[in-house]
């Protein structure tokens, strides 16, 4: 009972802390990006200022549903992260994350502007790119641990990454999509100008945008947590490495232009997909996973 209570406390703590970590992470991101570009950059807590400012702005919507869907995006991002810290079913978590993304896409389509429309389309393509990888990653984890539950990872006793290096790499390849970073920053353009303005975010403003930003932090942390999961029981190492990998993603962001969606699909599918599948095949061939043991 005590253990149950403890884990619940930890979970609640993590859910509460996640947006702060996410915000600060994005602040650090901006600062470091600025430094890489030989600029000074904003203060680390600038994202919070931005959020507060967005929060307080007058609310404009291009469609009534937009706000609702932005809210849904935020809620399901939070739910996905919560499920993760509650050590729930990973497959389910992947589905919930995709639900959040679908909400964002629908919200962008609601915007009636060609740019959010094109952005929504591209966001769907991004989903097409990374969803199989996520599902395959989960299946891989199952193959390694014999369970779809996050608990299974903890029960394994040694870092997952030993069994699933390919999957880990595949997730790293897909990470820029979720972090909205170059070269896969095709749907929303987090920093630079792009042909479809701000893509999915074009029509979101004020409060709705704040919600989306908030949800985005959760998603970011969720992904980093997913990466960290591969290092359990050395979770602290995993956390550190996750941040390091985020830093690498930042560097990649700065040394790459935004590429086209065709390239994204090709790259992610060819590299990420192949890695994930071959990892699964290797596991099956070697029979090292717990699932078929």
């Amino acid at each position, binding site marked *: 009972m005590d253990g149950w209570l403890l884990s619940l406390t930890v979970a609640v703590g993590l859910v509460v802390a996640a947006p702060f970590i996410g915000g600060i992470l994005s602040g650090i991101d901006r600062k470091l990006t600025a430094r890489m570009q030989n600029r000074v950059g904003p203060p680390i807590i600038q994202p919070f200022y931005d959020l507060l400012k967005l929060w307080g702005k007058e609310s404009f919507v291009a469609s009534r549903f937009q706000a609702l869907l932005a809210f849904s995006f935020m809620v399901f991002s939070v739910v996905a992260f919560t499920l993760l810290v509650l050590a729930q079913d990973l497959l389910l978590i992947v589905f919930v994350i995709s639900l959040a993304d679908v909400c964002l896409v629908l919200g962008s389509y609601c915007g009636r*502007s060609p740019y959010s429309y094109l952005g929504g389309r591209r966001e769907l393509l991004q989903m097409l790119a990374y969803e199989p990888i996520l599902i395959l990653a989960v299946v891989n984890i199952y193959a390694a641990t014999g369970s779809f539950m996050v608990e299974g990872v903890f029960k394994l006793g040694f870092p997952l990454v030993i069994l699933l290096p390919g999957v880990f790499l595949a997730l790293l390849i897909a990470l820029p999509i979720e972090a909205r970073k170059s070269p896969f920053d095709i749907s929303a353009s987090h920093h630079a100008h792009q042909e479809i*303005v701000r893509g999915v975010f074009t029509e979101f403003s004020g409060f709705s945008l704040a919600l989306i930003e908030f949800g985005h932090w959760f998603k970011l942390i969720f992904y980093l947590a997913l990466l960290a999961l591969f290092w359990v029981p050395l979770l602290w190492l995993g956390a550190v490495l996750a941040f390091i990998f985020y830093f690498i993603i930042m560097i990649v962001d700065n040394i790459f232009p935004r590429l086209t969606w065709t390239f994204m699909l090709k790259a992610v599918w060819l590299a990420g997909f192949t890695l994930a599948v071959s990892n699964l095949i290797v596991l099956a061939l070697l029979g090292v996973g717990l699932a078929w043991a």
Partner: protein
Amino acid sequence: MIDGLLIGLTVGFPVVTGLLARGLPGVWSRRLLVVLTTIVLIVSSLLLLWRGPYTYTLPEFWDEVIVVLDFILLFYFLYLGFRIRHPLVVVLTLLQLVPLAYFEASLPVIHVEPTLAIDFLAIIMCLIICVIGSLICVYALSYMDEHEEHLHLAKTRQPRFFLYMLLFLGAMNGLVFANNLYWLYFFWEVTTLCCFQLIRHDETPQAEKNAALALWMGLIGGVAFVASLFIGYYQVGNLGLNSLMSAQPAAIILLAFACLALAAFTKSAQVPFHSWLLGAMVAPTPVSALLHSSTMVKAGVYLVLRIAPALQGTALTSAVAFVGGLSFLVTAVLAISQRESKRILAYSTIGNLGLIILCAGVNTPLSMVAALLLLVFHAMSKGLLFLGAGIVENRVYSRNIEDWEGLIARFPLISAIMLVGMFTMFLPPSGMLLAKWVTLEAVASSPAQWAITLVTILAVGSAATTLFWSKWMAHLLFHPSTAERAKREKLQLPYLASTITITALDIAVSVIAAVLVAALVIPTVKPWYAVKLALPLLNLSTGIGAFPIWPLFLVMAVALALAVMVFRAKGGKLVSPYMCGENVEGAPASFRSTADLEFNFDASGMFFDRALGEPKTNRYVTAVGILLTVLVFALALVV
């Protein structure tokens, strides 16, 4: 007493009322008959559920009746073949007629005990047929009126329509109850007939052509069925399905099962045979709804599910799984390229049936559970989507989903119903997603190593599924240049009754999916498999994963309420979208150019139809499908 009555009510009653509807003059008598049938069917199916499984043996006299009717039917097919000048139909009918005549002449013993075996699978099917199918018939009452209004028919053809609709329901019920292979075969052929007649209902050249396609593809199934009938009879000695199932698995028995599976594939429109179902979209929408959700295609799936336990551990089961997987993958990808609403739905149906067949092929306890969940939820969601699509089509006069843009603004209620339907098709925590989740876990946990391929297929396929569904949802929500005010559209009572009932049913069953699993699914699977499902607090736990069903629904409901509250409070001024310049007054999604010309922002969907579009791909798909199917089956039978 009640046993016989229930069978009579579910199988016979619709046939009788169907004939009456054909014969009796007047609109109201027809309507009364349909509503009466609906009530009777729903009540009797619920009674059947209450009654539970049982077997029933009919007197031998009925066997004779069936034989006579069967021959009449086959001769009718022959006549049809000549009438529509389709040699393939003639040949395929003869391929059935001649062996059957021989069979009838030389081996007249076809009586099997019990004639009808009603187990949980049959009950589930019966429930689907009776509830969804009959609601579709109710829906058709309004739909056909509107439909004929659009066609400007001088004389109504509805009597004929409702005859086949109701006959279809009866035949389907008979099909799922039958234990006798011959009976099964007969009902099978009746559904083929109904299907044919309903597809060609509008009698346009296109309809005739596609009906003929459906007919000959269905007849291929018939031929396969006859083949399995023969093999079964010669190997087992009688025509009982139960005896065939319990026979020692031998290569020749497997061949019989393979033939049955082939028949099922034709019915369920699996990949090499998928084109008839797409062609069937020319039929009035209630027909499509019926075909897709509760009858026809479900017959094939039913057959596969029925024979699946007998295939455990054989190579054939993997072959079945692969064919299903192939269908799922191909149709999920092809659906992306579709503009036409009903074709997307059709592809989705094929894909989901493929998924069910894949599950049946994987043949583990969990996969069977997944298959059954898919069966139930697909019937509801797809039925709902077809009904919605029909209503929209009758109002927008287009099946192109690009023309449905901004439907939410024009027809909020029906759009909402459509959106719910789509939501339940692929997003958590709805039943379909639950089923898919179980599928994935089942396939992943399958001990067979080839399951990796299936997992990969599932991963890709479900991403593609997400893509085309969310695209469609987006199209409904997205309205570029229309500034039409939302009006609460007037829907006729049959529309409302059918759609809202199914919507409510869909959501309710999704929420209490655990009950469904406990009450129907596990009992169905239990006789054959060792199910290890747990249902803690009415949530689903597979032992390797857990799905909190109602908590997610709860979160969603709370979030929705909260969102509505927040945005009520926060308001939000409605503004024109960003158009990179000047908007046009009154038409928010139009933009101005220097010459004071107004341009509408116009959006094309994301279909990739240059790369994926029919008919280019369809050829390859069919060819590859035939090749793979033959290969897989040959391998399975040889190994």
